[in-house]
């Protein structure tokens, strides 16, 4: 088990509407003997609508976060910056790539950082917590920490559009398996389904309320995921992105009406599932923030507490 603590960049969603993601990750990492240290004074990652307005400014925002992360580790050598929200994760990765390429953009952003007394040396690199869990902490350590195996729970692992795209840093771009291996490590059964990386429509919501810019398109995209997961017998959808989770969880009633097919399937953060298996208090995992949370009847009852239905 790793004794190292990790630098953590939460971003707005995993601190706001998806705060349960940060809470549960915090709890799980602590439980695994490590921990997350939030970058102080972090700012918006510059994903969402910003790049379409001014891409360079969007890069500058991410660059500041990376530079701050480097400041936290003054010694030479790489600094892993964990970004849980896959939108932030991609924004940071993209910025890394842009800054690694010498040219006017890199110069401009370097200048902007210098103006506020910062410097990006190229040491900070964005990593996703799923990557860390699978490839650094390791499945064995995670299995070993399980006190309540999720035997019998069928999980549809949903990677979303950005976790392995456009940058596939730790998993296959077309058929990622990291999350599947994680849920299997805690005793659950990952279902095989073809929509692991299909768009949830989350981006269509961005910058607006629920019925955002393109409600019809969004509903169709999310619906396809929920329908397919249900059809294939999943009890739950595991996600790695606050937007996906919000999208998939929040509008099932509306979609049921719109498409004439009843939907009722919890969509949770993968870290919440891991935490439950490790016996971490549900409050610390932000389970109470979920709109739907239900473990199937066929699962063995937990040793202590843990009601079956709570939705």
């Amino acid at each position, binding site marked *: 088990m790793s004794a190292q603590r990790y630098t953590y960049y939460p971003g707005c969603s995993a601190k706001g509407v998806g705060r349960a993601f940060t809470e549960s990750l915090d709890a799980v990492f602590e439980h695994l003997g490590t921990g997350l240290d939030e970058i102080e004074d972090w700012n918006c990652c510059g994903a969402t609508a910003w790049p379409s307005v001014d891409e360079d400014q969007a890069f500058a925002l991410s660059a500041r976060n990376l530079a701050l992360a480097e400041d936290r580790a003054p010694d030479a050598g790489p600094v892993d910056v964990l970004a849980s929200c896959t939108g932030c994760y991609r924004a940071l990765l993209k910025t890394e790539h842009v800054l690694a390429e010498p040219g006017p953009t890199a110069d401009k952003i370097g200048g902007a950082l210098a103006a506020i007394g910062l410097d990006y040396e190229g040491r900070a690199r964005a990593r996703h917590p799923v990557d860390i869990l699978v490839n650094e902490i390791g499945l064995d350590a995670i299995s070993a920490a399980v006190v309540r195996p999720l035997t019998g729970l069928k999980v549809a692992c949903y990677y979303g559009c950005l976790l392995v795209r456009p940058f596939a840093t730790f998993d*296959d*771009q*077309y*058929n990622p398996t990291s999350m599947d291996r994680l849920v299997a490590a805690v005793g659950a059964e990952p279902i095989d*389904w*073809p*929509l692991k990386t299909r768009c949830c429509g989350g981006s269509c919501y961005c910058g607006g309320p629920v019925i955002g810019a393109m409600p019809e398109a969004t509903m169709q995209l999310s619906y*396809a995921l929920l329908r*397919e997961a249900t059809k294939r017998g999943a009890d739950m959808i595991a996600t790695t992105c606050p937007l996906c989770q919000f999208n998939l969880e929040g509008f099932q009633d509306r979609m049921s009406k719109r498409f004439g097919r009843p939907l009722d399937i919890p969509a949770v953060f993968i870290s919440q599932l891991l935490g439950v298996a490790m016996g971490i208090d549900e409050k610390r995992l932000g389970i109470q923030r979920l709109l739907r949370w239900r473990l199937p009847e066929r699962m063995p009852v937990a040793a202590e507490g843990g009601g079956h239905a709570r939705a």
Partner: protein
Amino acid sequence: MLEPEGGLTSQPISTNGGPRIGVYVCHCGLNIAGKVDIQAVVEFASTLPNVAVARDYKFMCSDPGQELIERDLRDGLVNRVVVASCSPLMHEATFRKATAKGGTSPFYFQMASIREHVSWVTVDNDDATAKAKALVAGAVRRVALHEYLEPRQASVRPDVMIVGGGIAGIHAALTMADAGKHVYLVERESTIGGHMAKFDKTFPTLDCAACILTPKMSAVRAHPNITLWTYADVVSVEGFTGDFTVRVRHRPRYVREDLCTGCLACIDACVHKQAKIPAEFDEGLGKRKPIYIPFPQATPPVVVVDPEACIWFKTGKCPRPCIEACERDAFDFEQTETFEEVKVGAIILATGFKTFDAAKMPEYGYGVYPNVYTSLEVERLLNAAGPTSGEVVLRGGGKPKVVGIIHCVGSRDAKHNLWCSKVCCMYSLKLAHMVKERTGAEVYNFYIDMRTPGKGYEEFYDKILKEGVHMVRGRVAGVTDEAASLEEEGRLVIRAEDTLIGSVRRIPVDMVILAVGVEPQPDAQDVRRLFNISCGGEGFFTERHPKLAPVSTFTDGVFLAGACQGPKDIPETVAQAGAAAAEVLAMVDRGAVVLEASTAFIDDAACSGCKTCVGLCPFGAIGFDDERKKASVNEVVCKGCGICVGACPSGAAQQHLFTDAEIFSEIEGVLEYV
């Protein structure tokens, strides 16, 4: 500033009246002249020691260009030649010939590559000119030291080996055998025929593959000048052009080839009543027994026992009714590997290709969804002699009503293979036609670009379009069983962008055919090492020159035919096989080959007998005389690498055309910056 003074080799040299060097600078049209200041190079060259004449010409490799050299030599103006032009790998032979025609040793010649190494790779004109001058200086300094050498010749053995018995190997073998040469045709499978034998029809004429191939296969077997070795592979190659010794391994088939008549009674008699083993020849779609023949027209028509599956080999307990059934008493369960050595003058490699492993693209669902097929599997389904007797029957049973063919699977893809496999567009159209013909299904072809250059190819495309095959231009995103509608329920859905109508389409189908691309054989690297040739970055064998020597390799006496050199269709393969055969015939009939002159030699008086060189020679060309305590090089065996020369601690070993003194002079020359 500390600088070494004086030169390593600046003393004037006197041999046969002193070197009088002619320097000829080529413009190569604007290829060189566009970047290098030719006049400046000529003027510079004329100031170099021993240079008698410096000229320039538009194209030195042209006849008038070569005549410049010949005339100056004949007029006695010069006795050594430097041509500054393209790479020596391109035209060294040309100019050596011109030098010889001028009446002197062809080796009184040196080339400076001011095109590949200068004009084509340098940004700045002044830099290019300076570098060109330096390379010319290097060549001038070294050519002054060149010694008089006669070209060496070696005789060529008349027999030829062909490795690979696909259509390329077959065609080359027949061509040469008809010309009276003895051919050893080595094939590692139990039958010749290669990929072509698996096809039902060939594009664009739709003639039956078997009808045109099997007569040639039989002809190979029957030809008195062809020794056909199947179930055999080459394990070592020694020697050099004109005189190779090839060692071939015969794998045991446990049936004597000379006795088996191919009656197949043993197969019926086998204790395995049902054929249960996936048949390799049928891409696993058909089944075979432990004793089998790949397909009815297999050549030679000799059965093979698969020891992995045969009960006798697995348990030692089997009544072996096969032996009983064989009237010729052809079984020999004691057979082991045997080895045979043959001496040949030339070798043609026709080792073919493999198809892309579709499982590497999980998004297309091969190996996940049973009704996703590779094109080669469908070839077998369509083949009248195949596992379904030519019926397109799905793995789950039933005939498809809608079929999608995805082009460029593993081709033109930065994640897999960058190259175009050249044949997939055409064979996909052929499959579309045949599937439609056999099943009446709606057929969709998903393509990136249609590539149909070839005689009758575009017309074929046109015909298929008129037959009502749907063409969707766009790369397929994925194949899924996720149903978004009732129509899609229980079927496969192809999701693709249709770039012509500008939208994403979901097309539900019953069968997906992946048009897998053409790749080098998995063991191409081993084969390359075995025959001492090279592979390109993509892994296909490298020809000596992409345009002017497309069937030769950098190893003299080894030639290429067919798809081992790059993706090719059947007409091209046959044409190339013919070309390779012609090259070999030219070489064999000439009876002699010119050997590389740059062999090593040992100054007998200077040799101390330290033996440093002896063990270093990879070819065993250095002998040691224990009596005299001297080493000596067998210049016929020597391949001219110079390893021994680099190691000889007392400078007794030297290499023709690459003596220490010549190289020191060239070093000094190229450092003569201007």
